[in-house]
């Protein structure tokens, strides 16, 4: 008991200095007793008493708030902070539900009683229907692994740029879960979509009742009305008890706390889809309904603010994803993009899901710039920042001066390793 506490205290003390370091580095300093010494003490406190619903080891401190608290610039009436997944600590493709990113657009998480919750499907349908949660659970279900990502992920606006250090800060608005629920196509068959029903509008039950328009072709394709996440009920902050999962589309379309679906004849132009989730371009025109997320990837280790303990073997690993389908290829460069080599894709490689890639690397102790580049099943390649600049018709200065909020930014992310082993984000320095 005592040794357990002092061990934890020692860990927490050093934890502040270590936050964000490589998992390997943390392990080596956290005071693991050498083999042959006394066995570890039994669990105490909350870890031991939580047998009905387990908790992680008290030595594990990975969290969504690290480095993020300072950014919650909004003050005043209820505004929930947006939380980012600690991708630097992730080791597979599934994000634990308590580490899933959260963007709530300021609505506090509603505490919904599932017995009081129902889903209304109406509009241009033959038979409007109201489903209880129990009824939805009686219907044939599917489980599918899909990523979610905020359209604003991987681009930090100018005023937040000083926080663009870790991969959690730059790319932490993406997570991946196994979602379980009823295919929306099945529910639409039950209500009978009428001729002219070309879009749906989905709406949540939270204080702002945010709503989003989704084309019928997508609704009938692979959209789920989900009640399960990673084998249990969806977490409240992820939409308990019901959430629309729109695979590959920008996060805002995946309506949480789903209470209503209306079949309509056109996009209903709700506030968020018509304003924030659009791309204003430098010429003053704007792209809206850029629904599908582009092919993207990032090296999660080594990544920003980590420190390599020294030269020698280091596995480079990261995640790749594409809203357009499966990842076909990930290449890694360790020399600033001069040469690229194929990384190994770890099975399973699933459509519209995080794909883990791994690349063996022997660091020679000299300065290096690490980057990953993904290609999706259509052969669409993740662009460099320079390629995005050509597409946008801007110079590199644009990103350093504009306060415009860019959506769907999917440029290749470079991490520079300096000779002391420290890793830095250099995307805005090139």
């Amino acid at each position, binding site marked *: 008991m005592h040794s357990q506490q002092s061990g934890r205290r020692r860990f927490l003390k050093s934890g502040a200095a270590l936050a964000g370091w490589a998992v390997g580095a943390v392990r080596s300093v956290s005071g693991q007793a050498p083999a042959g010494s006394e066995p570890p003490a039994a669990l105490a406190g909350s870890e031991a008493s939580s047998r009905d619903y387990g908790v992680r080891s008290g030595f594990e401190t990975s969290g969504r708030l690290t480095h993020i608290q300072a950014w919650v610039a909004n003050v005043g009436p209820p505004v929930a902070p947006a939380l980012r997944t600690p991708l630097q600590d992730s080791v597979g493709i599934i994000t634990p539900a308590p580490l899933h990113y959260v963007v709530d657009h300021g609505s506090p998480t509603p505490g919904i009683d599932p017995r009081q919750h129902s889903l209304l499907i109406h509009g241009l349908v033959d038979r409007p229907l*109201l*489903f209880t949660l129990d009824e939805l659970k009686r219907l044939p279900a599917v489980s599918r692994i899909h990523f979610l990502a905020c359209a604003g992920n991987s681009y930090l606006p100018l005023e937040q740029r000083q926080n663009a250090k870790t991969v959690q800060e730059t790319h932490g608005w993406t997570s991946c879960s196994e979602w379980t629920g009823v295919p929306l196509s099945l529910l639409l068959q039950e209500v009978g979509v009428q001729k002219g029903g070309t879009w749906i509008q989905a709406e949540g039950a939270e204080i702002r009742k945010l*709503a989003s328009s989704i084309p019928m072709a997508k609704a009938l*394709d692979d959209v789920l009305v989900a009640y399960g996440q990673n084998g249990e009920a969806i977490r409240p902050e992820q939409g308990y008890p019901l959430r629309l999962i729109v695979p590959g589309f920008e996060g805002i379309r995946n309506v949480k706390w789903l209470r209503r679906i209306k079949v309509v004849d056109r996009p*209903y132009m709700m506030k968020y889809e018509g*304003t924030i989730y659009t791309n204003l371009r430098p010429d003053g025109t704007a*792209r809206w309904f850029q629904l*599908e997320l582009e092919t993207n990837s990032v090296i999660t280790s080594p990544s920003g603010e980590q420190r390599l303990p020294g030269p020698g073997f280091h596995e480079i690993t990261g995640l790749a994803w594409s809203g357009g389908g499966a990842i076909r290829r990930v290449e890694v460069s360790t020399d600033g993009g001069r040469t690229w080599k194929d990384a190994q894709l770890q099975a399973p490689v699933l459509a519209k899901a995080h794909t883990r890639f791994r690349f063996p690397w022997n660091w020679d102790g000299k300065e290096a710039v690490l980057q990953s580049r993904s290609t999706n099943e259509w052969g669409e390649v993740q662009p460099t920042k320079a390629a995005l600049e050509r597409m946008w018709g801007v110079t590199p200065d644009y990103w350093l001066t504009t306060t415009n909020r860019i959506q769907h930014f999917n440029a290749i992310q470079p991490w520079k390793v300096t000779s002391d082993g420290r890793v830095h984000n250099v995307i805005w320095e090139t």
Partner: protein
Amino acid sequence: MLFGKPSLLASFVVWTASVAALAQGPAYHLGRTPTPEEIQALDISIGPEGKELPPGSGTAREGAKLYAERCAPCHGPTGAEMAVYHRPLVGGKGSLTTVQPVKTIGNYWAFATTIWDYIRRAMPLDKPGSLRVDDVYALTAFLLYRNEIVREDDVLNATNLPQIQMPGRKLFFPAEPDWKPGYRQLYFSPQPERRERRR
């Protein structure tokens, strides 16, 4: 005999059964039919054509007082302030082509119906749903007036609100959003592009 051969009858039965399977009928018979009142209570969607706008009206002059009471604490006294949410509702003229664009109702929102829908849906954030229908028209009118889109005494109602030409409407493309499997959209392509597999 009406059916000459048993085999003919059998094939007729098979045919009708397969037609039933293909029809767009319900297969599971779960869920219940909501009453019109239940639908009405939840159906707060207002589309760009404004078909769903309820009867009522309001002017900017009426909206000014409401705005001061219910909205100004967060959005600032005139709506042009950065205020709590760092997103002004008013102004931004000429800023969209600069490096510091200010996107507001006046220069960026494409439909007046979106203002009406969002105010009723979500505002004020401390008590959504507490505004009367006429209040929502009046506040919409006030925000349009502050953005120099309507006059102070213009009476907005279900008929004329959807007809307001918003300056932001012409900025966006594609003009009619669309999505089909096998297509993708890029920042600068005017229409969704058909995908082709590349090696």
